[in-house]
């Protein structure tokens, strides 16, 4: 059994250096479409039509992408004659729609934040990406982020999933059981805007309908580094690049 000790030592430190250094290993993020200026009106219209969730909005020849609605179907990349521009990277965290400036947790929590994860009807991908944050390649423990098993000791509530009806009650109870000085982060397109499931008798349209959400991490699923960026924003260690989310109709 001592083999495991030497085996682990031999494999060495494999953790990413993010946020000290950007992580560029291929495959850490699928990237996402970004607003593109097309050469013709038809191309812009085609791009807006092909998107199954209306995440792409065309204004004349320019298109804008609402990252909260993008479900990463890649149709705008692979099925368009002139594809959308693709934005690599993973720092996707944003404020929720009703907030104008970031209110992260107090500075006492910046280096030691305890996170309670609740699955509220998630498909499994976002939850899986959150699980990957514990593996040695990302290792969020080195940043002082820990997972708790009970909301009584949690500072941040991380919710994935569009909030199915059966989980609405338990989710509310979890939030109520957290001591104040608590923040909520909604991870994944489903948690922000309902994703592909949308609003139905069994499904709410995002966590915002049940709890007051402070931060959002769009993506379907957001890669672990995007979630990590979101956690750093919630802890106050990273500021947001775009303080306001792009909403429909805004030019």
């Amino acid at each position, binding site marked *: 059994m001592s083999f495991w000790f030497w085996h682990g030592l031999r494999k060495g430190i494999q953790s990413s250096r993010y946020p000290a250094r950007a992580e560029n290993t291929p495959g850490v993020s699928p990237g996402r479409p970004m607003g593109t200026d097309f050469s013709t009106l038809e191309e812009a219209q085609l791009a807006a039509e092909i998107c199954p969730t209306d995440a792409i909005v065309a204004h004349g020849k320019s298109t804008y992408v609402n990252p909260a609605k993008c479900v990463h179907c890649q149709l705008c990349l692979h099925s368009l004659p002139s594809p959308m521009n693709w934005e690599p990277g993973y720092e996707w965290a944003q404020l929720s729609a009703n907030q104008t400036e970031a209110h992260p947790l107090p500075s006492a929590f910046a280096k030691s934040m305890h996170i309670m994860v609740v699955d509220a009807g998630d498909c499994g991908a976002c939850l899986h990406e959150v699980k990957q944050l514990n593996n040695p390649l990302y290792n969020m423990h080195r940043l002082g982020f820990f997972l708790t098993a*009970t*909301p*009584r000791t949690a500072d941040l509530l991380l919710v994935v999933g569009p909030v199915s009806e059966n989980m609405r*009650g*338990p*989710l509310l*109870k*979890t939030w*109520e*059981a957290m001591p104040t000085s608590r923040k909520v982060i909604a991870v994944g397109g489903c948690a922000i805007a309902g994703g592909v499931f949308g609003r139905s008798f069994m499904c709410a349209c995002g966590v915002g309908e049940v709890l007051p959400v402070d931060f959002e991490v769009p993506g379907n699923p957001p890669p672990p580094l995007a979630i990590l960026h979101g956690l750093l924003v919630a802890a106050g260690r990273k500021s947001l690049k775009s303080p306001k989310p792009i909403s429909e109709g805004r030019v």
Partner: protein
Amino acid sequence: MALTGPLLVAIFAVCAAGVLLSALLGRKHVPWVLALAGALSAILMVLTSASILLTGHPFEAALWTLDGFGRFTIHLDSVASIFLLVSGVVYFSVSLFAGSFLRNQTDEAHPHFYYAILYFALMASVVLILVAGDIVLFLISWECMSILCFLLINYDTRGQSDKSAGYIMLAMSEAGFLAVAVAFLLLARSAPDFSFAALRTASTALSPQTLWLPFLLGFFGFGVKAGLVPVNFWLPRSYTAAPTIFIPVFAGITLNLGFYGILRLDADLMHAGYGTGLVALITGSITALVGILYATTDGDIKTMLAHSSIENAGIIVAAFGAFLVFRALGQPVAAALAVSALLYHMVNHSIYKTLLFEGAGHVEAATGTREMDQLGGLARFLPGLSAIFLVGCLAISAVPPFNGFVSEWMTLQSLLRSAVLASTSVRIVFALCGAALALTAALAVTCFVKTYAMNFLGIRRGSWELRDNAQAMSKFPLAFLAVICLLLGILPTYVLPMLNQSAETLAGTSVTTALVQPFFTATPENAQLPSAFLTDFHNLGAQTGKGLVPGRGLVVLLRGGEANPVVFAMSPSYSIIALMILFAFAWFVLRRLTRRRTLARRPVWAGGIPRLLPILTYTGTGFSNPVRVVFQAIFQPNIIEDTRQTVAVHFRTAIHRQREETHVVDRLLLRPVGTAAQGIAAFLAGMHHGKLNAYITYVLAFLLLVLFIYRGG
């Protein structure tokens, strides 16, 4: 002292008055008579014993003579006074408790006066046992006490589920009585008359081998009442079947009479060898272990407390065994220490066990059920009772600053004194028994954590309703005992000198100087302590209060001896002072730190389910199941599983598991003995075949045998 005689007469007079008044007055007044006369008589008991203890002179009186039985004498010495004192305190609380309980009982069919008559008669017989100075008076009053106990248990048979409990108790009491009578008579063979003084002098002439038989007969004969394995199987059943108002008497008084008998016969009247002490020590340890195992896994409050009484009896008898061994092997100081521990534990046990039984009585009256798996959440409905019961649980778990801690500490320390003995085998026995007692102490904590938590904390599990009369019953008797628990715990240095007189009588040496030092100045008595120790204690402030507090210092000390100059010390008195200072400090600090915080009360976190149902919370059985599993070899339950399924294995609708347990003593000892006895009887029954000729042959054969035996003339 001159007052003792009149006081004794007064006790009997008050008891007689109580009997008369309860017989004559109406039903409504009987509870008042019970409470007031009982309390008065109890106070008189306390005064009587105080008169002996404060002066140090025993009281002697001679009563009338009976032909063939000798003179009846009364002899109240310091040993009996301790028991009388404890009985007085317990009777005070129990009388008030019984009075308030009966007052709130609206059931018209209960014959209150019948109970009160028996109660006062029992009180009189208890006092008589304690003051008896000769065999005949002792045995007569002992028998009265047994029969009165039986009558009191069967006083209300309607509520009993186990109607044979009283009869089993009576049968065992009679068997014990016979054994005790034989033991006394064996000692009296070489004595001029039946008084205890004569027996004492006569037994010094007997050899240790001849003393074995009276010792064992007396030990197990009195052990019936004291609750020793293997003669205690009547105890849990009787305690459970007895009426609520009577059980505290059982636990606080009659149990002690067993110890009194053992002390009187086996320690005072004879000085047996150390082998007998080892027998007592081993029996005590086994009793303690078996008692606490069954207590931890039991789900009925009263049965659990009964088993716990067995456990405490085991501890007391183990200390008794240590005392005998030390005395026989020439270690009088260690012997005095052991007997002080024994008496202290006996006093403590009476106080907190009575408190717990009264609390259990309150719980049963308030909810109508005794099953711990059905209770829960009582702290919200009965906060006062909950706090007092908590004191009782802490005391019995030997948690400082309550009294259980002091006596457990002293008991275990006295077992550790075995280091001064020369014989290795004896030391090994001491070590093993000490380990067993340590295990029982740990299990006792488990048991009472379970009791308090399952009954008072959590949420209500059963469907009982709180009854109105619950709040009306007075909690003063319980609070009174709780305060005494605290006082006995934080003032041990004042209690030990009182017990010292009895210790001196039995062990021959005073233990006060060995245990309780005066304040830490350089006095001749303190010269034996190492000077470094004195300096350290001075620096710790151990002599604080020298001018204010009269008498002894506040630390209990044990010295290790010349070869081992270690000092073992403990001071609950200083502990409670330090504890209060720490609590106050913590409270002030927290108040400052949380000035701007608010306190929010939220429902318990249960994983997000809509409601935490009672079926989803831990039961007492679940809490104690690990103990049951670990000690499976002792319990050896027979589990009958009944699985009901509708369609196939997949669709089980119900799994019922019944656990059938035979008590380990029943299994290992009583069943085989019973089966053997039945076998012998069946064999002998072969003689009853009805043939007249064979019967004539039996008579002829017997006649020939007798002639042969007496052929010499």
